[in-house]
């Protein structure tokens, strides 16, 4: 491996980073790139808070007896882990950070269509986050992130109302981001940037935005009803006052299953950018990959009932939801095959973003395949609400989504910061993440099929060996997540200047200096070709 070509240091030219140093210039920023940085800082904070809760959960589960914390505390720990990771990290993660930064740049635009709305969405996000943290410090909440009724609406003695208000408020930031993206993608494309030339990252965010706009209001309504039932005892979900607890599950999953695709689709978009760049190839099956994102977004709205196979819903509903769940699996499989085919006869280099993309491919495949188990009605009767499900969705959310997020952060770090991250230590930590992840979550598949239910504070002795393995893996995983935080921050000071296009990548975002000026492009670029014409580019980093 030859070292990277040295690039001239960042000069005194004006960039979005040195456009102002006051706190006000950040807190009132309308520049999409600065707002992306605000989001980066906030979600990183939430990620490590959520991670701290997960650490305590894994520590508790090292022994079968619940001997580290009380049952109530344990229930609050896994609840807060879920709520923070899902609503305050995974859902905003790629769209609000990389999406915010890159959507206008990839389109050749100066900014998003509604910069003020964009800033507002960050404030709403922070307000929701603060409310939720208030719930944490004022005693926490113990309903599980799923808020199942009537437990949440009539039985729990914890800060449920504050929490649902927090999540309710945050939903609006998601809706505003989705709205902003859709309008921007429709109206602010550079001359020549037709729909057929859009980068796949844009396609995936377009599909994500549709779900954000159509799904989030339903979540907001269901959580508002939970709050109303707690305060006014309106009998909607509580059977003691004439309500139906299953109605809540229908409403909740109508959003929360599509929300899974809000989390994974942007990750798929990132991987679709990374693989062509480091294989120097046009992506295989561009149209199919783009359309499969939309297919996932639409079919994803029709599968919520697969969370309810043992809830008492009709067996015929179960049949329909199972069938539709298999339908939604197909576009994901097609994407995996197309990414793999893109490698064929490529010219492949192994920089950190590509290692994360490989990791994503493997772990997403395993997560997707275990989805076939839980969608199979007869098998789900056994594995539903066990650690099998926990393992399955962590393979998708952490193995898939977080790997893609880290891959994307490394890939665009030179563009965002203007500096290179240290390559070897980054590769090392990518391996640590992959290893730690598998050691943490693979044993949980076995644990689940053995019958260990999820959300158990204490458990029968025979499950201990696998739980200890899982906790050991989690400690390795934690190292893999702390390392990038350290070296990426250090690279802001010590990193080599990156230059406009260190990867020799296609894509409009690479045709402007790093870090970009506030206006993104000196003159509006014109697009004359598809997004991944790598065969026309010089091949960098040649290894002899």
């Amino acid at each position, binding site marked *: 491996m030859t070292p990277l070509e040295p690039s001239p240091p960042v000069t005194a030219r004006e960039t979005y980073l040195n456009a102002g140093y006051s706190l006000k210039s950040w807190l009132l920023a309308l520049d999409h790139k600065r707002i992306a940085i605000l989001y980066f800082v906030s979600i990183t904070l939430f990620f490590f808070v959520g991670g701290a809760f997960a650490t305590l959960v894994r520590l508790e589960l090292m022994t079968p007896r*619940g001997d580290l914390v009380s049952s*109530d505390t344990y*229930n609050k720990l896994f609840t807060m882990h879920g709520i923070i990771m899902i609503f305050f990290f995974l859902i905003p993660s790629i769209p609000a950070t990389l999406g915010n930064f890159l959507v206008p740049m990839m389109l050749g635009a100066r900014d998003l269509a509604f910069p003020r709305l964009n800033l507002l969405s960050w404030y709403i996000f922070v307000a929701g986050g603060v409310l939720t943290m208030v719930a944490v410090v004022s005693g926490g909440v*113990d309903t599980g992130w799923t808020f*199942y009724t009537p*437990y949440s609406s009539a*039985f729990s003695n914890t800060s449920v109302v504050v929490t649902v208000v927090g999540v309710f408020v945050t939903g609006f930031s998601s809706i505003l981001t989705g709205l902003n993206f859709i309008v921007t993608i429709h109206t602010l494309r550079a001359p020549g940037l037709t729909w057929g030339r859009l980068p796949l990252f844009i396609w995936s965010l377009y599909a994500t935005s549709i779900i954000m706009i159509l799904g989030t209001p339903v979540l907001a309504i269901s959580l508002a009803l939970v709050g109303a039932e707690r305060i006014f005892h309106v009998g909607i979900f509580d*059977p003691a006052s*004439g309500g*139906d*607890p299953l109605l809540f599950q229908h409403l909740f999953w109508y959003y929360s299953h599509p929300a899974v695709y809000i989390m994974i689709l942007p990750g798929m978009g990132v991987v679709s950018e990374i693989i062509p760049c480091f294989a*120097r190839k*046009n992506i*295989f*099956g561009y*149209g199919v990959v783009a359309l499969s994102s939309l297919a996932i977004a639409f079919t994803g709205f029709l599968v919520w009932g697969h969370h309810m196979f*043992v*809830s*008492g819903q009709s*067996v015929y509903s179960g*049949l329909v939801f*199972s*069938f539709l769940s*298999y*339908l939604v*699996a197909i576009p994901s*499989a*097609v994407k995996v095959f197309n990414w*793999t*085919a893109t*490698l*064929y*006869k490529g*010219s*492949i*280099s192994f920089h950190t973003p590509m290692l994360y993309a*490989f990791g994503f491919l493997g772990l997403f*495949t395993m997560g997707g*395949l275990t989805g*076939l*188990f839980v969608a*199979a*009605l*007869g*098998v789900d*009767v056994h594995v539903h609400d*066990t650690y099998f499900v926990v393992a399955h969705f962590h393979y998708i959310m952490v193995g898939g989504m977080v790997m893609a997020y880290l891959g994307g952060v490394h890939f665009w770090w030179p563009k965002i910061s203007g500096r290179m991250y240290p390559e070897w230590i980054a590769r090392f930590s990518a391996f640590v993440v992959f290893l730690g992840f598998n050691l943490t979550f693979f044993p949980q598949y076995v644990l689940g*099929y*053995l*019958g260990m*239910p999820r*959300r158990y504070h204490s458990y*029968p002795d025979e499950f*201990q*060996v696998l739980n200890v393995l899982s906790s050991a893996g989690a400690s390795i995983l934690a190292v893999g997540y702390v390392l990038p935080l350290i070296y990426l921050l250090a690279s802001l000071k010590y990193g080599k200047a990156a230059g406009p296009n260190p990867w020799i990548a296609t894509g409009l975002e690479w045709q402007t200096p790093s870090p970009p000026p506030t206006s993104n492009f000196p003159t509006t670029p014109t697009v004359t070709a598809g997004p991944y014409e*790598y*065969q026309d*580019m010089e091949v960098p980093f*040649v*290894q002899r």
Partner: protein
Amino acid sequence: MNESFRLLPESASSVAASTDALYFFLCAISAFFTLLIFGLVFYFAVKYRRRSAEPPPRLAASNALEAFWTLVPFGIALVIFFWGAKLYFHISRPPSDAMDIYVIGKQWMWKVQHPNGRREINELHVPLGRAVRVTLSSQDVIHSFYVPAFRIKQDAVPGRYTVTWFRPIRAGIYHLFCAEYCGTYHSHMIGRVVVLEPERYQAWLSGTPLDEAPEEAGASLFATLGCITCHGARAPTLAGLYGSEVRLADGGTARADEQYIRESILDSTAKIVSGYPPIMPSFRNQLTEEQLFDLLAYIKSLKDPLEKRKAQE
């Protein structure tokens, strides 16, 4: 170590082997595709690692290939779907010879009522080889009745009945878990299912004095609550009601199953029987889940007098 480390749970019901068979098939499919993707990525990564500054060749898109890897996974998915659905229908439909057990979930215990009146908490004794139909309800929040060794799970939902069944094929003691998060001591809501040889089951049944049978408890409730004053005269007779079609005042019909009877007691004006005035008071919040089960058992035991006579002849 042998005791504490295993890859499959015990297999103690008639469906366990069928569930495991589909599970093994799914494991095989998953292993194949995981190895395929890992193998291809690894092979391509080594074979096509960057060695020259020559740009790679341009490959034409292939509709045939796209169709191939869309249709093959779809075909496999269909097989899994039908297999899983067949198993699910089997698990959801109790056989007609099944014995009835009533189970109530409550924070944080399982309350079991046997047909002969015996009641247990966090223990369920059943005879080996006999199909057992479990009717579930909950007194507070949602719980889930889960016996891993039987590969069955069913939520117990407040305000309605759900049903599951199993046929134990191996004597032994098995975990009964609550699988739906239900509050502080969710992980303490653990019981055990004790599968006994038929003769030992009989011994267990007669081992301790029996509680009142649900029909009898239901019969006395039926009198003390005053039901007896109307039903048969100003209100429809309940003899032979269970399982029959009921003609409703709005012109429709309803099947008189457990859910219908429960609704008629708790929300008496929801479905009015044709030809009778809606005079019955609602018993919402006045009956415990146990009392409802007892009433249900009593009403189910009331046979149509005509049919009864036929059966005797």
